[in-house]
């Protein structure tokens, strides 16, 4: 390869790098726990710096001064009990010095007593579900899934500022209140993590674990799932909006209204056009990651829906698969996550899109009847 080409390639790579973002320390803490963790880390870094300079100072000096090439002759000592005792005891004391503030922090992190609000965060493959269990907002419940459009991920559209860290329904909590978070999971182990709160807690299926935070600043805070949970582990972020007490009250009322309005009438009769329109939205939010927007799937991995034999069969089988999933595959049981109307809409959309033209119209009541 010509030297010039190589140089140009390097410059290109480096120039790209120069424009890219470089965040290199903890994100700004907004809770006392996160601030405490920050301070512990700084203490550790100072201790490490001192040891680093001491140890490697000695080593590089030795490398310089005790070389054969400058004529240094080897001495023959190979033992010195005093020195050995000293350099065993001193590190031991340094460790005790580290352990004391660390212990205090552990005890603070563990204290989940007297919360103002208790919220349950349930990990799903691959989104979070939030239930407000106690305190203002009790009874509110919703899913929170990645909202970054697919084309930004595949590179056909430019990435927005909060790429991969945005959701459709963020968790909303009031500022300066102690929020107790119970984590659990629906399928495999996930982990709920918000760096600026200093909170990370594994979400284990079949069990609850509790942790807490008290955010001291209004703002929007973003985190990610922190335990490998399958293919979209990197695509199920957490977004928490910390708002003033007043705004929180307003949000709670708005949520309650929304929940009431969103309860679709299960006996409503839909027409094909309306179902397809709604189904397209459901498809984009839930199915596109595997089956792709063009319904072609991924060869050998995720089946195509466009022209699929499943579409040619009577709709019962199709409904059954969407409701109950397919064991041992990534096809989840959407019956648990989506309403009758949403499922009816997405199946209608699939059976009447791309080259599929069955003309089937599936009503929500059919889905309700099929749940078994």
């Amino acid at each position: 390869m010509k030297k010039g080409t190589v140089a140009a390639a390097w410059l290109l790579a480096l120039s790209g790098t120069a424009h890219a973002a470089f965040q290199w320390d903890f994100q700004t803490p907004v809770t006392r726990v996160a601030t405490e963790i920050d301070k512990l880390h700084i203490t550790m870094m100072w201790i490490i710096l001192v040891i680093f300079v001491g140890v490697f100072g000695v080593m590089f000096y030795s490398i310089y001064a005790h070389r054969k090439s400058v004529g240094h002759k080897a001495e023959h000592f190979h033992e010195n009990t005093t020195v050995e005792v000293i350099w065993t005891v001193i590190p031991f004391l340094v460790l005790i010095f580290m352990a004391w503030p660390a212990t205090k922090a552990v005890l603070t992190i563990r204290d989940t007593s007297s919360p103002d609000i208790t919220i349950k965060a349930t990990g799903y493959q691959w989104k979070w579900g939030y239930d407000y269990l106690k305190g203002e907002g009790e009874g509110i419940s919703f899913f929170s899934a990645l909202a970054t459009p697919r084309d930004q991920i595949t590179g056909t559209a430019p990435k927005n500022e909060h790429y991969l860290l945005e959701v459709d329904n963020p968790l909303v909590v009031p500022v300066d209140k102690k929020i107790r978070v119970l984590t659990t999971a629906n399928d495999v182990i996930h982990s709920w993590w918000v760096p600026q709160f200093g909170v990370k807690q594994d979400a284990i299926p079949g069990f609850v674990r509790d942790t807490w935070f008290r955010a001291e600043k209004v703002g929007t805070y973003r985190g990610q799932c922190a335990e490998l949970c399958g293919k979209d582990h990197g695509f199920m972020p957490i977004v928490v909006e910390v708002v003033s007490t007043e705004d929180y009250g307003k949000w709670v009322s708005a949520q309650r209204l929304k929940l009431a309005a969103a309860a679709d009438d299960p006996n409503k009769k839909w027409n094909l056009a309306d179902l397809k329109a709604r189904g397209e939205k459901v498809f984009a939010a839930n199915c596109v990651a595997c089956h792709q927007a063009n319904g072609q799937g991924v060869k050998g991995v995720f089946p195509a829906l466009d022209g699929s034999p499943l579409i040619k069969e009577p709709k019962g089988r199709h409904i059954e698969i969407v409701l109950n999933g397919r064991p041992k595959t990534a096809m989840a049981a959407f019956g648990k996550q989506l309403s009758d109307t949403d499922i009816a809409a997405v199946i209608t959309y699939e059976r009447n899109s791309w080259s599929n033209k069955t003309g089937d119209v599936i009503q929500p009541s059919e889905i309700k009847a099929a749940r078994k």
Partner: protein
Amino acid sequence: MSAVIDHGHAHGHEHHPSGIMRWITTTNHKDIGTLYLWFSFTMFLVGGILALGIRAELFQPGLQFWHPEFFNQLTSMHGLIMVFGAIMPAFVGFANWQVPMMIGAPDMAFARMNNWSFWLLPVAATLLVSSFFVPGGAVAAGWTIYAPLSTQMGPGMDLGIFALHIMGASSIMGSINIITTILNMRAPGMTLMKMPLFVCTWLITAYLLIAVMPVLAGAVTMVLTDRHFGTSFFNAAGGGDPVMFQHIFWFFGHPEVYIMILPGFGIISQVIPAFARKPLFGYSSMVYATASIAILSFIVWAHHMFTVGMPTAGVLFFMYATVLIAVPTGVKVFNWLATMWRGSMTFETPMLFAVGFIFVFTMGGFTGLVLAIMPIDIQLQDTYYVVAHFHYVLVAGSLFSLFAGFYFWVPKWTGRMYDEKLGKWHFWLSMIFFNVTFFPMHFLGLAGMPRRIPDYALQFAGFNEIASIGAFGFGLSQILFLWIILKVTVLGRGERAAARPWEGADTLEWTHLESPAPYHSFHEQPVVK
């Protein structure tokens, strides 16, 4: 010590088969050592290609090359292949070549079992790699295969479990062999506390292996029965607990990482005194420190589980026990420095890697200390900070010590010197590109980037780009290493090596055997004073 060089039998007397049959049926520790080393280097290159696949995807935000489920296969298999296919067999290869020579024994205690121990490995490797081609693909639950994710996966997981069982059996047999050889076959006069430190560290490592590989076998068997035979070890529905998998796995897993570094400590403890022309400082403390590290390694496993919600008393115990390991590890570093101090040092390639090891491994030790502090670990668990930490100790640690050992001992194995100029290039390129790849990962972890993700938010882009460039550089540097190996072994190009090319080396293989070492050495055992 007697300076009589053992010329072994004249070459005409060798009556072992030649060609392929020689390698399949050999019971000679030198041949088997060679087999292990070639196998491990091949697996190292395979694992390396997987790593480049990972870093290519992570070069920029967005999904460019792989689907997320395949990316998870890349990360999991990279880990499994490097741990079980590259690092562990490489150290066993060194043990096979070196332990009998260094204790004045003619061969390993169980020569035929030695052969089986090796040949199980290509079988296991084939099973593991073939899992890429079954429906659902290879293991994709991380090398740590946590339940219930692992109980959910396709047949690739079963192949992985069988491969682990086979590799475990190979390790256990190999360890039994090593322990028996060391305990029963030392030359007269070589007491346990007179053994070269490489032999000591391998003795301790072998005990660790026998203690924990069976526990891994138990854990993966439980995953297998949960998957296919209706048990519920890790399934809450049946009264089980997914967290129990983590306890059982890490009870194996933590000693495992010490298994991967203690022989490396042994190699460094041979190289530094040789090139400082000074005896190892504090031999007994080095032995006691190694033994303490091994014992402590059994009681720290839950520091990998600080975020599962353990009771507070458990968290505190594991935090204290973990930071305690820094003490004996620090002692070893200080002893190596004291060995260098006021020595008469030269810096041929083995010494470059040994000194480089001390520098970079210690940095890995520092980040381990940071992670041990549980409140800090809450922010760093499952992030790139952890990835940085373990690559510092495993690559800059284990791998660099293996490089040091290779350059140190290859004159004894082949009778030829490696190309010193190329060796130095290999060192500097590896050192520089290693740091370019992995140092930025500390920042990524601090900034909040989780691990095991194929795509990331924009604030992580800068350091990811640098890390990927470094990774490709590091990979290319190992191709240079491949050339260095081929040149001195297969191609036989290089200066003829003296019996003792390293002035300061004084163990039995240098003082009593010619270079290359004869096929059968020490039919008559030397007497050690």
